[in-house]
Each structure stands twice: as structure tokens, then as C-alpha cells.
């Protein structure tokens, strides 16, 4: 039996990626990283900033996502996100720009805990990508 399922990543502007032969996807879900295999239970969750890993026969792809929603149903994993970048092809200047922007955000006073958590998460991820 094949262990593959379908992955669709959709941007507001276009369909970002569609793959039929995915074996595992690691998503940075809101309440912790989540690995999704075939025949996972139907689930809806959303993403926090992090690295999305897609495993298929031909290897592994890494994407940086800032936010989004995932839905898994009938062995189709749909990811709706407005900001996703392939880690290997990502623009360095965008990264550093985004990093400094987010750091500025963090220094603001009127943040609630949830936002503070999301922002510091984002900074960590951005830093880890830049240092690689």
C-alpha cells in the first residue's frame, strides 16, 4: 500500500505548490509542531511562524511560513497561507528586513502575551534561517 498523500499549498494569488507523492509533512502548528502522515484524522489548525518540511520519495523540501491555516481531509492536506518561501531560494535581504521589522514590533509596549509569543517565535525562526 502506498503511503503517499496529496499536498496543496495555496496562496491568495495563486496555487503555490501541488504534490501527489508526499509521504510526510511537518507543520509548525499553533500548539506545537505536528507531523502528518497518510490517513491522519481530519483536522483543522493554524500555523505559527516556522519551518514547514515536506518529505517525499525524492527527498525533503523546506519552506518558511509566517501564518496560515491547514486542513487535512480524505488524504488531502491543504495549506492556506499568505506568506510562504522556499528556504533554499529565499531572498536574504527580505529576511533581514523582516527580522528587523519584527524586532521593532517586539519592542512595542502594548503587546498581549499571544502576540509576543508569535513575534518572538518568528524572530527565532528568522534567525535560525539566516545563520544557516
Amino acid at each position, binding site marked *: 500500500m502506498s503511503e503517499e498523500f496529496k499536498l496543496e499549498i495555496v496562496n*491568495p494569488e*495563486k496555487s503555490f505548490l501541488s504534490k501527489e507523492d508526499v509521504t510526510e509533512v511537518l507543520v509548525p502548528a*499553533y500548539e506545537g509542531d505536528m507531523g502528518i502522515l497518510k490517513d491522519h484524522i481530519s483536522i*483543522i489548525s493554524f500555523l505559527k511562524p516556522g519551518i514547514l518540511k515536506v518529505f517525499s520519495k525524492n527527498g525533503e523540501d523546506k519552506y518558511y511560513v509566517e501564518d496560515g491555516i491547514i486542513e487535512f481531509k480524505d488524504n488531502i492536506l491543504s495549506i492556506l497561507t499568505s506568506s510562504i518561501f522556499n528556504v533554499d531560494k529565499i531572498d536574504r535581504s527580505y529576511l533581514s528586513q523582516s527580522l528587523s521589522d519584527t524586532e521593532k514590533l517586539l519592542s512595542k509596549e502594548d503587546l498581549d502575551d499571544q502576540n509576543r509569543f508569535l513575534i518572538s517565535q518568528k524572530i527565532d525562526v528568522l534567525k535560525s534561517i539566516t545563520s544557516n
Partner: protein
Amino acid sequence: MASLDDLKKRILSVKSTQKITKAMKMVAAAKLKRAQENAEKGRPYSEKMNNIILNLSSGISDKENAPKLLAGTGNDKVHLCVVLTSDRGLCGGFNSNIIKKAKAYFSKITSEGKNLKIITVGSKGYDQLKRQYNDKIVNKISFKESKNINFFDAEKVSKIIIESFQKNEFDVCIIFYNKFKNVITQIPQAQQIIPLKSSETGDENEKDNYEFEPEEDEILGNLLPKNISTQIFKAMLENSASEQGSRMSAMDNATRNAGEMVDKLTIQYNRSRQAAITKELIEIISGAESL
């Protein structure tokens, strides 16, 4: 009767107008193709988003405590109308069709004694509405600088809407835009986005058992603002395809009309030239006879 010289000038000027309209038609056709592609590419996102929200809202157990963006404030007093138009003119009935639809709605709700607030997106809509509804317009947004429609612009609009919703400044939000059917037909649409129409959420024949992480309420609370951006983005995409389609057919008409005008003027020019020659001949002949 106009002199020959005047006619010649007019023919020339109509011809150069025709050149311009022809070029505009070509440009619109090229842009239309791109806008149409964009609209099609953007469809999966909004469809998926809609599906997820449907599943979520049918799964929500406690309707009373549902987020206000879904259920509404319980009032129906203040209507916020977001009118999406273009930033450029010369596109046939495109803008006036939306405005007409919006105005009909405005007069309906004002006659019902409800309050009206307007946000215009695109400068043409503001130009047409400011005369009559200037005191109602709370905000005007224009994206003249951004060349292509992008999601950030849509997010800006939805941010304004949501912020004002959280301040309880309105109860119902409706967006007006043109839905692209084909090049000749664009249908002005009024779509209610806050609260989400129950007719769209009433589809309960397939209930899926989803696992939610975190809780439904929290996901909905996060998703609904996104959905508003998505809906606005969709409307903007449809609008831009409609705008180009409308401009294309308008310019096509204009080119054809200019062609007809050139033909008519040319006939008139030839006739008066002929008349002038005949007149001269008669003068010569009658002069010769009298000798």
C-alpha cells in the same frame, strides 16, 4: 457648410482619436488576459477558505457565543458599505454600474431609517459619490500606486473594516463590486461579509468530524478576519478583470464609432469638394457663354 479645410482637420482629429482608442483596446485586452488569469488563480484559496469556515461554523455547538464576525452584533442599525471601483476612467459602464447598484441600496436603507456609512475603494467611486453622500463617506482608499492587485492591499482594507467593527461602529458590512462573467457582461454584486450570510452556512448535508487544534472558537476568531481579507481580495480580482473587460469593449465600440464617423466625414468632404468643382465649372461656362 464647413469649409474643405475644416473637414480635413476634423477627419484627421477623429482618425487620431481612433488610433488612441484602438491602442487602449489592445492594452486592455492584454491586461484582461492577465487579470483573468489572476482571478482564476486566486479562486482555490477563497474556495478552500470558504469550505473550512463552513465546516467550522456547522461544527460550532454554542451559537450564542459564536464570534461576532460570524453571528453579527444582533443589531441591524448601521450599515457599512464598501464600494470597490477603479482608479481610472474610460471603461464604459463599469464604475457607474457599481455606483448605481450601491445608490439603490443606499436609498433603500436610508428610507428604512438605518444609518449609512461608506468606504470607497478606488478614486472613481469617491468622485461619483462625494456629491451626494459626502457626509456619509467615512474613508476613502485608493491603490493608484500599486501596479498589481496584491493581498496586502486587501488586508489593509479589511483591517480598517475590522477595526471599526470592533469599535462597534457598524452592524452590517456589505461590499459592492463587479463580478466578471465575460468580456461583455459584468454583473454588479452586493455581498454581505459581516455577519456571514446564513444561507451560505446552511449547507449541512455533509458534516465532517474534524479535530480542532486549538478550539473551534479560537480558530474561528482567527479565521474570520482572514476570510474578510480573502473576500475583499477576491472582489478586487474580479473587479480588475471586469474593469479591463469593460474597458476593452468600450474602446472597441469607440473605435468602431470613430470609423463610422471618419467614413461619414469623408463622404461629406468628397461631396463638398465635388460641389466646389461643379460650381467653378458653371461659373467658367456661363462666363464663356456671355462673351
